[in-house]
């Protein structure tokens, strides 16, 4: 009477469960579903593209401000102007003293003579200044030490050390404050842009999640007849769910590909403006995206796919009781 008994094991049913043909069919069902609700798919992909663009706008803002701050930081140093009557030895003493500080990265020395030359160069158009210089016997301009700190935030500490040292009376003037406000302004601006970008991206991500949720829900509704029959004839839950999950993943991938197609021309448009702004060709946003292509888009697509999977899983669980 053996054939009259039912089996609990799927492999004992007269053919084996064919993973390859199942995968192929799951992909086929997902693909058909994608085209069957074409307009809905289009809207879903559009919103995913917008999400990608807005996130990448954030990326651009981030790396440009970082680059801007770095460029400015590179240019920052503190000039310490010594009194004209300070001797070279005294200046070297101060230099040695400052070099011993851990915060200091680099010190360059500008001698009195060089400082005078620089001053002349700077004011070569101004005959009054040049003439008055000629009349003076002594060099009226003191030596200068240009100090670079390891970190921008350490300048105040270096200044303080210097103020409290015995060399304070040798120093005529120090300049620093202008750079600090400049960097502060960049930081402030970038924080504001980031905040707006983050908000926009957040809104887009939220809308994208809702739309993916709704699209998958509609896809399930469109396929309710098939799903019902699939259940009746013994399709596994995995087989029923997978096409919908795959469809959601497909939206993420297609959205990402199209957004890359849209983003690159945008970067090319922005690049000349950035060059003008930085007055250097060192920083190229397009090259940056090229160099970090997988890091940027790979990570983004992974996150979008993950979010799509979560969103559609909720839709499937709610609307597909299998």
């Amino acid at each position, binding site marked *: 009477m053996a054939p*009259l008994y039912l089996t609990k094991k799927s492999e004992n*049913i007269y*053919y084996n469960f064919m993973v390859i043909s199942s995968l192929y069919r799951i992909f086929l069902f997902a693909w058909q579903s994608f085209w069957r609700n074409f307009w809905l798919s289009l809207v879903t992909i559009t919103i995913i593209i917008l999400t990608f663009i807005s996130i990448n706008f954030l990326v651009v803002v981030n790396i440009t401000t970082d680059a801007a701050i770095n460029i400015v930081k590179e240019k920052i140093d503190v000039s310490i102007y010594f009194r004209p009557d300070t001797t070279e030895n005294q200046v070297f003493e101060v230099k040695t003293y400052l070099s011993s500080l851990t915060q200091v990265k680099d010190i360059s020395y500008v001698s009195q003579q060089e400082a005078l030359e620089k001053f002349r160069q700077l004011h070569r158009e101004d005959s009054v200044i040049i003439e008055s210089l000629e009349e003076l016997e002594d060099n009226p301009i003191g030596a200068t030490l240009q100090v670079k700190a390891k970190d921008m935030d350490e300048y105040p500490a270096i200044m303080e050390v210097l103020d409290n040292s015995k060399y304070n009376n040798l120093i005529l003037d120090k300049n620093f404050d202008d750079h600090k406000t400049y960097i502060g302004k960049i930081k402030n601006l970038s924080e504001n842009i980031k905040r707006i970008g983050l908000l926009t991206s957040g809104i887009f991500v939220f809308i994208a999640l809702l739309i993916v949720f709704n699209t998958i829900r509609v896809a399930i509704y469109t396929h309710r007849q098939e799903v019902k029959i699939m259940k009746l004839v013994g399709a596994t839950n995995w087989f029923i769910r997978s096409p919908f999950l795959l469809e959601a993943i497909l939206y993420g991938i297609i959205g990402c590909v199209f957004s890359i197609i849209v983003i690159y021309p945008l970067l090319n448009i922005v690049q000349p403006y950035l060059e003008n702004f930085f007055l250097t060709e060192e920083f190229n946003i397009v090259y940056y995206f090229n160099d970090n292509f997988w890091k940027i888009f790979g990570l983004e697509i992974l996150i979008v796919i993950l979010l799509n999977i979560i969103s559609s899983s909720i839709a499937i669980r709610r609307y597909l009781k299998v």
Partner: protein
Amino acid sequence: MIIFKNISKIYPPDVTALNNINLHIKPKEFVSIVGRSGTGKTTLMKILTAEEPSTKGRVIIGGWDITDIKSTEVPILRRQIGVVFQDFKLLPKKTVFENIAFALQVSGAERKKIKEIVPQVLKIVGLINKEGRYPIQLSGGEQQRVAIARSLVHRPKILIADEPTGNLDSINTQEIVDLLLKINEFGTTVVLVTHNREVVNSINKRVVTLDNGAIISDQKVGKYIL
């Protein structure tokens, strides 16, 4: 083959659909389950295909106690039970061949296997020359035969037909009944749920009558008694 032991089904809060059903269906038997609408026939069939759990009692099919069946095991059960419905449940955008193949596709059968099995079942139901047609191009009886063919692709040991003739005229009805009898002769246990008096009376096999969720009669060679 099928054992219902003290089966009760209560829908919350307190609607009793089935009340202490005890039924034993032997292998290769042909059983008609009859009763008025809303008397629990369909609920009983749903318990059999694990669409709904029973509230009390145990169900054993082919030695397999499915009372507390796991959701991952349900597909394995359903591939071994053929089910046919009043409304055929065919996909209108698929041809006869595709509708039948669909049942094999979703359970992972190879293309080669599908090409082999579909003509076989089409031959059994006598639709071998209509495999390229769409459901709308077929008569009701033919559509139901397609549905029966689909239910046979897994070579089920049990065939459940829930009001299969409900939408058909008398000629088509007789065709379907004859087909079910033929399938039963091949050795498949057939459970026919119906409230069609003529059908039941023409079969001359076991008849189980339900009323108000309980079995009120079980005759070896029965007639429609309600």
